Each structure stands twice: as C-alpha cells, then as structure tokens.
C-alpha cells in the first residue's frame, strides 16, 4: 500500500521531503490537528539512538571484508577466462570481462571514500534523486545549529510547514487508500466497489490536486525572500490542504451516513429465503442506483436518501415475509404443491424486474400473487392428498385428468385472486365427485364376488364408459359427473349381476334365465333336461337354494329394471350379511355365538372351507376371504355332488350332514328376504361386498 501511495504521489510529481523512516518507505504519520502537529514539530527532539557505540562501524567493516572477499572470488573466477580467451566462446568471454570489471569496481569503491556507501550508485541521476535528502539534512543542520537568524527562521518555518503538510498529505493519501480499501469490504461487493470507486475518483479529481497545489506553494515559500511572503505561501498551502481534507471528509461522511441508513436492512438475517433473495436483490439494485445518482458533495445529502429507501421497502419486506411463510408452510410441502414454488418465484421476479420499484404497486402485485398461490396450493395439496388413495385403475384415470388440470392451472399467469379462488373451488369439487365415483367402481372391481371371468369382461366395459365420462364431463360440474357415472353403473349393473351369476353357477345366462322361468311356471313337464339339471342342482341343498335366490334376485331386477346398484349401496350389505348368517347357522354355528362376534368366527370357518376347496367351479383360485358368495357356494355344491374337480378334496372342515338339507329348508333365505322387507319372490339384495 505504501508503494501505491508513493507511486501515486510520484505520478503527481509530489516530493516527499524529510522522510523519517528512511528507505523502508512512507512514514506512518498519525493524524493530528494542524496546531498540534505544528507544535510537535517546533518541539521536535532528536530520538535517542539505541545502537551500541561502534556497533555500526564494526558491522560495516565486517560487510566490507565479506564483500572484498567476494570480489576476489569473482575476479579469480573470471580472470583465467579473460587470460585464455581462445578456449571459450566469444559471448562467454564478454560475460567474464563484465563480471570481472564489476567485481573490480566494487572492490575499488570499497577501498575509496568510506562515505560513498551511503549512496551506492554515484551516477548523476542517482545523486540528483538524493539531493533533496541532502538539502533537508543541511536545512536541519542549520535549524539545529541556530546560526543565521533570517535563514534559520526561514528554513525552520519551511521545514516545520513542509513536514506538517507532507505529513498531512501523507495522512490524507493514507486515509484515501485506507478508506477506499475499507469501503471495498462493505457488502454486498457491488456496493463496496461503488463506494470505493466513487470516493477514489473523487479524491483523485478533487482532493489530490489541492495537495499538489499546496506542494508547489510550499516550494515557493522556500524560494521567498521575506518572512511575510513565506507566511503567505504557507498559509495558502495550509488552506489548500484544509480544503482537500474537508472535501474528502464530507464525502466520506455522506457515504457513512448512507451506509448506516441502509446497512441494517442489508444485513438483516431474517430476510432469508427464495423470495427474499429476489426482494433483497431489488433493494440492493435500488441502493446502488440511488447512491450512484446522488450528489455526494453536499453535506448530509445521502442520509435521507438511504432512509427513504429503507422506509419505502418496509411494506415490500412485509409482503416477502408473508410469501416466505407460505412457501415454508408445513402443510403445503407435498410433491404437487412443491411444483408451484418455481412459477411463484418466476412471477415474483417479474414484479421486481424494473428499477426503481413502485413500492405500492409491487406490494399489491406481490399480495395478489400470494393469494393466487394459496388457492393454487390448495388445489395442488388436494391432489397430493388424493394421490395415495387413487391406486385403482379408475382412480388412476381420475388422477391423470386431475394432474392435467393442475398443470393447466399452474401455467396460468397473471390470475386475479378471485379467478384463482373460483378455479380452486371448481376443481376441488369436481375432483371430489370424480374420486368418489372412481373409488366406488374400483371397490366393486376388487369385490371377490365379482372376481370371475364374466365379471371382468363387464368391468372392462364399465371402465371404458367411465373413462369417457371422466374425460368429457368437466370437473366443474360435479353433479353431472356423478349423474353420468351413476348412469354408466346403472346401465352395466344388470350385466354385472348376470355375469356374477354365470361365474357362480358355471351356466350361461340363457340357461339360468330359462331354468328360473320354468321353475316359476312350475311346468315341470316342459322342463328340458339342462334346466332340470340346473334346478336340481339349485334345490339339492339350501346353499344352492341361496344361489338360486341370488340368481332369482338378479332375474327380478333384470325383468323389472330396478336400480340394483342402489340396493348394493343401500341396505344390500345387511341383506347379504343375513345370507351369510343363514349359512353359518346351517353349518352348525350357534346364532348367539354368531351375533356375539359379528360373524368373525364364522368367517374363520369359511376361510377354512375356501382354502381346502382351493378353486371355484371354473377352476379359478378361490380367495379365502371368509365371505360366502356364489363362487364359494357353487364350489361347496360341486364338492358335495362329488364333482371330479374336487376329487382330491376329502374334507372341507364341516360335516356333510350340515350341508345336506331337505329341500324344505329354503324357507331360511326367504325369511332373509322378508327380513329385508322385499316383495315376495324378491331375493336378498346382492352386496358389493359379497364374496366368492
């Protein structure tokens, strides 16, 4: 830094006189009031020398000796070469002559004037450079000696003032450099650089020229003939330095005041997060622009500007705080909700793109953005919460549609708070409707009672129809979604019922319908052998009768075109539970026990039967779910009828007699139907929970 200072002054042709620290560099002169510094110079004492007597002389002798030896070494090294030049290249011989001469000259200098080693180079230019040091020495000698009153006074005044002004100039320059460096350390870097560059330029343009002027005035003082002239020049020089000091001080004070005003805001650690990064960036930009444009030379001009900026940004920071809280809201951290953050940041960036910012407009826009984000986040959060529930095939369709709708919503820019709210309400309501229906369908699909091949074929149809609804009916109209999906279910339910019956009995729909029709007509003579077989099988034991009633129920529903689906979701469960209970009683479970544990022990028995049977009459795996349904009943009947499919199954865990009942037994299921409040001939409703 000292070197920089020195160069700076040399560039400006300022001569530093009377440097106390000698060759080590620029003296470090503490800044002190002008009067105090003058007084110090008047009372200047020669500092005590701590070097021991003769020590320097001894050192000089030692070094002279060392150097002399070294000269001899070098000469001895080079001499043979110059003597036998033919053995060496020409270039090398030239070099050897050079080094020999150099060593010789140094040795000659050593044996010459002892004083010469103060200035090692005796060239004119070098001596000229040292001339001012010799001048100063002489002036000091005269001053200390006190001879020649006029000359003494003149020199003393000059020296005192020169030293004082030199010190002040040095101090000023040191201050400029130190301040510039300090300013550079201010954060953010751009601001530090701006402060420092501005100040540095100002100091160079305005302050240092005054110093140069002061210096030339002091030179004139040195040449002046009278004390009056000397005083005038010195006074003027002091004025220049004072002015430079004052200008620099005002400038720095302004920077300090400005910085003090904005610093707490810039350093505010609570202003952190993605939105604050945007807002802080904007604030910093404004700070830089304000500082750059401001007039830094008028006293106190910058403070109000800094304070104004901070005040102006307060509502913006409040808005940013709200935004940050929203982004960090623990309830809004789902996968979909997170995708909202990037577009939110983008939109926030747009608000703060231009400089200067209109605080009021920015706050309004920011708050609107927050409101819109809240609405969008509700929608995204809803989807986040629905996602794990929508695992079924229908649920996945709904999920995909909803994701598309969410993407469309997220892509919308510049929404008003009201628009966003309306979108939110519409979408969520729509999804609720779709999800409810999808879950219903998916639940039906997973029912064991509908696990057969025929049922699956019907489900493919249901899925296709439901997909159409979900893709075409807008979510905004949940009522229509529900109606349309219900219509699909209603339209396909009859098929589903017959499919379940076919899966359960292993017969075709035509055969079943025909057999039931024959039986209803009680025209035994006209019953064909297949229908008779079906009816015989149906009436072989109470289980088959239950199956028959099950088929009958479907038949009735089919013929009367009633809303079977409604029965399923209505009291159908209850009805089917009663069917299960009838079966439980049939196999020997006591009614009290059944009622006591809600059929749990019965389910265990059924699971045992299902496991042992292993497959239904179509050869498909019989799921051991503990619930009685057409597949289980069909399998038990086939096993009982010694169907070859079950040849390997010797025992199913219940007695044969429990299952072999007289045809008179079918009263039970009728009673069940009665208990359900059905019309005569209407069987128990088929529960979607009905099992195999």
């Amino acid at each position, binding site marked *: 830094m000292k070197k920089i200072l020195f160069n700076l002054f040399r560039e400006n042709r300022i001569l530093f006189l009377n440097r106390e620290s000698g060759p080590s560099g620029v003296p470090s002169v503490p800044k002190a009031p002008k009067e105090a510094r003058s007084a110090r110079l008047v009372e200047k004492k020669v500092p005590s020398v701590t070097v021991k007597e003769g020590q320097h002389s001894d050192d000089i002798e030692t070094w002279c000796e060392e150097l002399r030896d070294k000269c001899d070494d070098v000469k001895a090294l080079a001499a043979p070469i110059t003597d036998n030049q033919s053995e060496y290249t020409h270039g090398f011989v030239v070099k050897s002559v050079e080094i020999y001469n150099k060593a010789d000259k140094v040795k000659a200098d050593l044996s010459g004037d002892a004083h010469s080693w103060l*200035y090692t180079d005796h060239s004119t230019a070098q001596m000229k450079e040292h001339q001012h040091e010799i001048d100063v020495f002489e002036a000091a000698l005269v001053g*200390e000696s006190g001879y020649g009153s006029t000359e003494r006074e003149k020199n003393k005044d000059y020296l005192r003032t020169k030293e004082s002004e030199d010190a002040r100039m040095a101090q000023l320059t040191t201050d400029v450099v130190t301040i510039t460096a300090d300013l550079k350390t201010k954060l953010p870097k751009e601001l530090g650089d701006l402060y420092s560059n501005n100040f540095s330029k100002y100091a160079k343009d305005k302050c240092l020229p005054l110093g140069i002027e002061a210096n030339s005035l002091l030179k004139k003082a040195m040449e002046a003939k009278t004390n009056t002239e000397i005083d005038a020049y010195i006074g003027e020089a002091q004025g220049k330095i004072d002015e430079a000091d004052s200008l620099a001080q005002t400038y720095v004070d302004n920077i300090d005041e400005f910085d003090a005003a904005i610093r707490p805001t810039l350093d505010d650690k609570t202003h952190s997060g993605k939105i604050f990064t945007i807002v802080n960036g904007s604030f910093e930009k404004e700070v830089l622009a304000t500082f750059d444009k401001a007039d830094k030379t008028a006293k106190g001009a910058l403070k109000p500007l800094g304070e104004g900026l901070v005040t102006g940004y307060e509502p913006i920071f409040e808005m940013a705080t709200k935004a940050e809280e929203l982004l960090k809201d623990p309830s809004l951290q789902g996968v979909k909700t997170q995708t909202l953050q990037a577009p939110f940041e983008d939109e926030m960036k747009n608000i703060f793109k231009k400089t200067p910012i209109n605080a009021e407009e920015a706050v309004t826009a920011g708050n609107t953005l927050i409101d819109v984000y809240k609405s969008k986040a509700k929608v995204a959060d809803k989807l986040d919460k629905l996602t794990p529930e929508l695992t079924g095939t229908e649920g996945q369709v709904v999920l995909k549609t909803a994701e598309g709708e969410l993407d469309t919503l997220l892509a919308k820019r510049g929404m008003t708070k009201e628009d966003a709210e309306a979108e939110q309400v519409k979408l969520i309501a729509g999804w609720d409707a779709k999800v409810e229906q999808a879950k219903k369908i998916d639940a039906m699909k997973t029912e064991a009672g509908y696990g057969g091949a025929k049922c699956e074929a019907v489900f493919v149809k249901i899925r296709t129809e439901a997909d159409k609804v979900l893709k075409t009916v807008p979510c905004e109209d949940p009522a229509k979604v529900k109606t349309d999906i219900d219509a699909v279910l209603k339209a396909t339910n009859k098929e589903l019922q017959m499919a379940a019956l076919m899966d359960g009995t292993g017969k075709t729909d035509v055969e079943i319908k025909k057999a039931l029709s024959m039986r209803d007509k009680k025209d035994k003579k006209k019953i064909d052998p297949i229908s008779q077989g079906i009816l015989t099988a149906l009436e072989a034991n109470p289980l088959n009768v239950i199956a028959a009633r099950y088929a009958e129920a479907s038949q009735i529903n089919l013929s009367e075109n009633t809303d079977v689906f409604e029965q399923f979701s209505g009291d159908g469960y209850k009805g089917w539970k009663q069917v299960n209970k009838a079966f439980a009683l049939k196999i020997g479970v006591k009614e009290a026990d059944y009622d006591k544990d809600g059929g749990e022990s019965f389910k265990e028995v059924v699971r045992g039967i299902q496991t042992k049977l292993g497959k239904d009459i179509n050869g498909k795996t019989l799921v051991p779910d503990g619930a009685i349904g057409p597949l289980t009943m069909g399998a038990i009947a086939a096993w009982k009828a010694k169907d070859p499919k079950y040849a390997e199954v010797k025992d199913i865990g219940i007695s044969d007699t429990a299952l072999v009942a007289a045809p008179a037994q079918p009263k039970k299921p009728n009673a069940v139907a009665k208990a359900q409040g059905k019309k005569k001939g209407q069987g128990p409703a088929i529960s979607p929970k009905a099992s195999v």
Partner: protein
Amino acid sequence: MVNFAVIANAELVKLIQASSKFHALPVDKQEAHLARIANLPIDVQTRLMEFFREENAKEQKQKIENLKKAYDELVELEANFKKEMAKDRELKASQDDEAKVNSMLNNI
C-alpha cells in the same frame, strides 16, 4: 581538504567527519558550516552532537544495507556466471566435436 580543526570539540568533529551527508555537501558549504559551528555556544554544540549521532546512526544502518545488497548482487552474479561457465563448456565441447567431424569429412 576541509579543515575540521577549526572546531575545538573533538567529539563533534569525529561525528561530523563520520557524516556522509555532510561530506556530500559541496566543499565550500562544508567549510562555511564548520566555520559557523566553531563559533556556536557549547549547549548548541551538544545539541548538534545529538543531531549528528542520530543522523550517523541512520546513515550507517543504510550503509550496511547497501553493502549487504552489493554482496548479494555479487553472489547472484557469481552463481549465474558459474551456470554460464558450465553451459559454455558444453557448447565448446560440441563445437570441438563438430570441428573434428568436419575435418574428418574433409579428409575423406
């Protein structure tokens, strides 16, 4: 030669004689200063002795540094020169080889 004998204070003379800066002044100036110093009162001469002691101490410190610098410079020159010597030997050897080969070729 400047006549220092005009000053009675032997210690002061010794100090002035040791001052390189004083010697750097033109001879007429040196003589003028000596003449004036010779007439100074004792207390001022004592003050001057302090002044010269301080100045001489600074000068001697500077001289030592200059001598060290000169020594270092010479050491560096010597080291570089030794390197050059080694290089030159190699160069000379290669030139000799080349000359021998040329001579042989010419003979052939």
